[in-house]
């Protein structure tokens, strides 16, 4: 035994064990989020069954089985269910019944012994709606302006055709409202600001007033035109509806204007399901969220996250590199610089919410408030930069990640061999030229390491962002077609906050849970992609310096 300990074998086992635990945890996290999140897009089977109520009456249920769990029979009996047999434990299912507008609830637990005649009828229709969540029922007919145009077997093909048409119209309405109306709103807002500015400067005479008024009229006229077009489109889209029998036998009409997807999950083959799956995944990544973020896509959140990280990198890199260069190359080794170095290292350990508070107090209220006073007087009292926005969020994260960049860059500078500095100096280069031509290029991989660490930290940060710019739902992206294109003062959406919001703040937590996992998985994916980009850049840079190790 003693021999065995002396041989060092236990150490190998202990260390390998540590690694194994770490790996299991990492892969556990990834596979859990992936498994829970990615099944969300798979079209699930819809079950039809009969349930015996507490009073003995029987009702029909239509829905998706979302979860099942073991439960003590006594508990069920205590709450009034009559469970046949004398087993101690039984199963209960969580059914997603949909039709929230009809029944008032979406999810419900049912004890398995009370569910009889479980079938999967092929004609059950799943309707994904833009409001009220999913709808399940037996399709009976398709209507145009209230009159039936197709029934029975002909209904489904007709429905698919008309849903496609409605979707096209819906996209057009959305585009018109977002872009054309947005353009006009922008023009009107600019006119208002111009007027206010003239007013403040005391230059608002009749000529200017008339000019503005004229432009305003023009905008109003074209606004009315667009509105008329939208009205027409709305009338068009409201033409069709479908009629279906829901689980309690009622006939319910669903206007196609509110439908985003119809399918018969029970009738789909594997190939259909796969293509449907990727279609849904694509929509998830590219669409805007709806229904208080519990449905639809997360594109604005992805965009906001990536853009904030890029802005943060642009701000933190020059600042961090310059600070590191001064500390390592010029500042010497005095007491003061040692204290500063310790302080910088400790800054990395400050809780991020503290940075958030600082960002809100200093950047948003102080800096932003003053910028508004100086440059955006005309739009006051509505703040421009004086409210949380992507600029302040990026700046806050830039100071949050500054220590990481400084430390990594300093490390890299200290690793540039003395012999190369001497070589450069001996060729008549000044210290500054040596820095620019030899030392800094060689420290580039280390700077990239700093950037990688900074990005990894910033992309996942959520708490400080809630104070300085992230919102639940941003009306527009921080990048669009209106001058100056990049709107740094705008609020934005962020994947980390989106997870929190969907998971804890949404009105329908059950329905949103898979989305939490899917969003979490995507956040990890975004960070991985950003990291891979930075790492491959670093490796390309490192390639140049192979063979330097011996110096």
């Amino acid at each position, binding site marked *: 035994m003693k021999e065995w300990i002396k041989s060092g074998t236990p150490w190998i086992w202990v260390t390998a064990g540590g690694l194994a635990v770490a790996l299991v945890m990492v892969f556990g996290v990834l596979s859990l989020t992936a498994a829970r999140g990615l099944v969300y897009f798979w079209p699930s089977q819809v079950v039809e069954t009969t349930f015996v109520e507490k009073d003995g009456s029987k009702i029909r249920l239509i829905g998706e089985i979302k979860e099942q769990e073991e439960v003590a029979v006594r508990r069920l009996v205590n709450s009034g269910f009559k469970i046949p047999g004398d087993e101690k434990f039984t199963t209960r299912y969580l059914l997603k019944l949909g039709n929230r507008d009809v029944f008032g609830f979406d999810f419900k637990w049912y004890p398995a012994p009370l569910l009889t005649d479980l079938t999967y009828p092929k004609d059950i229709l799943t309707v994904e709606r833009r409001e009220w969540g999913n709808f399940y029922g037996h399709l009976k007919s398709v209507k145009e302006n209230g009159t039936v145009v197709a029934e029975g077997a002909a209904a489904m093909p007709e429905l698919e055709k008309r849903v496609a048409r409605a979707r096209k119209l819906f996209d057009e309405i959305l585009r018109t409202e977002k872009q054309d109306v947005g353009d006009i709103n922008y023009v009107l807002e600019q006119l208002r600001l111009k007027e206010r500015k003239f007013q403040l400067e005391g230059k608002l005479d009749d000529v200017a007033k008339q000019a503005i008024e004229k432009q305003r009229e023009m905008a109003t006229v074209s606004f009315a035109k667009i509105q008329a077009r939208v009205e027409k489109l709305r009338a068009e889209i409201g033409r069709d509806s479908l009629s279906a029998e829901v689980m309690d036998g009622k006939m319910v009409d669903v206007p196609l204007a509110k439908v985003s997807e119809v399918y018969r999950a029970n009738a789909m083959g594997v190939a259909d399901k796969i293509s449907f799956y990727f279609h849904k995944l694509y929509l998830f990544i590219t669409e805007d969220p709806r229904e208080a973020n519990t449905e639809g896509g997360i594109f604005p959140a992805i965009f906001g996250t990536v853009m904030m990280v890029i802005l943060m990198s642009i701000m933190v890199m020059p600042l961090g590199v310059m600070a590191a260069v001064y500390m390592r190359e010029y500042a010497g080794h005095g007491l003061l610089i040692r204290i500063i170095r310790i302080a910088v290292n400790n800054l990395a350990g400050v809780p991020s919410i503290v940075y958030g508070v600082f960002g809100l107090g200093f950047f948003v209220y102080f800096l932003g408030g003053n910028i508004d006073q100086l440059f955006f007087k005309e739009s006051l009292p509505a703040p421009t930069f004086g409210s949380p926005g992507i600029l302040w969020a990026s700046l806050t994260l830039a100071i949050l990640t500054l220590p990481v960049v400084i430390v990594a860059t300093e490390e890299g500078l200290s690793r540039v061999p003395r012999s190369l500095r*001497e070589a450069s*100096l*001996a060729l008549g280069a000044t210290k500054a030229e040596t820095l620019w031509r*030899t030392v800094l290029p060689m420290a580039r991989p280390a700077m990239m390491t700093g950037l990688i660490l900074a990005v990894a930290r910033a992309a996942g940060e959520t708490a400080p962002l809630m104070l300085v710019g992230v919102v639940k739902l941003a009306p527009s992206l921080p990048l669009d077609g209106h001058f100056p294109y990049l709107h740094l003062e705008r609020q934005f959406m962020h994947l980390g906050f989106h997870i929190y919001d969907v998971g804890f703040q949404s009105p329908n937590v059950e329905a949103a849970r898979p989305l939490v996992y899917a969003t979490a998985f995507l956040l990890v994916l975004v960070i991985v992609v950003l990291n891979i980009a930075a790492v491959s850049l670093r490796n390309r840079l490192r390639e140049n310096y192979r*063979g330097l190790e011996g110096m």
Partner: protein
Amino acid sequence: MSTLNMSATPPKTHTFDMSAALDRMQVGGSKDAAAPVCIETKNLNLYYGATQALINVSVQIPKRRVTAFIGPSGCGKSTFLRCFNRMNDLVENCRIEGKVLLENDDIYDRAVKVALLRRRVGMVFQKPNPFPKSIFENVAYGLRIMGVNDKKTLSETVERALRGAALWEEVKDRLNSNGLSLSGGQQQRLVIARAIALEPEVLLLDEPCSALDPIATAKVEELLCELKDRFTIVIVTHNMQQAARVSDFTAFMHLGEMVEFADTNMLFTTPKMQRTSDYITGRFG
């Protein structure tokens, strides 16, 4: 050290360098008369903090000759060499007293621009230290620092320097490959090319062959003999045979003092000082 290559080199050197050898015979001890002085130090004292590394060193280094500094480790020969291009300025706590004159100009004068001085006094270090750039850019480095960016001038100068360093034939087809991809001996010649591209007056070499194998050493030594027609060369070496092979004059240093400075033949055959003869006969060091 006593490989075939090594022993084969000296005769070759001598045949190549016949005129210099003749020169040396005629000059004898009175070296000053034959060649004008390039670098002169007067009562040079150098301190690293409280420790004195050079003690009262006065020497006159002749122009367009090879002068070697020998001596045991830590005797101050590298420190002394680094006084000539003010590399010691980089060392904290380093203090210098006395004078170093390059062509009669005091290089420690306040008005002297160190960068300009270093263009006149090139240096090659112990370990080859090419930049992690292409061969071309390595040689062009000093020129670019001077602000030369004209492509034609650059490529002409680079070729001349590489030819001067006897490296052109080996690298002319791969000027764009990384300088670090060359062998150790080639790297050292690249570094020499880099230094001579600036056409300095003086070339300082700090144990340039200590990291090289014998064949590469022979090549570098051969190169030095070619270069001395154009440059004043000062070489620090650990290796007494090398000093004997390549240099016209040799200085023996010990414990920060310049013990003896003489014509190489004289120093190795009839040293005047007891310490010199003890060192060259291998009694210490």
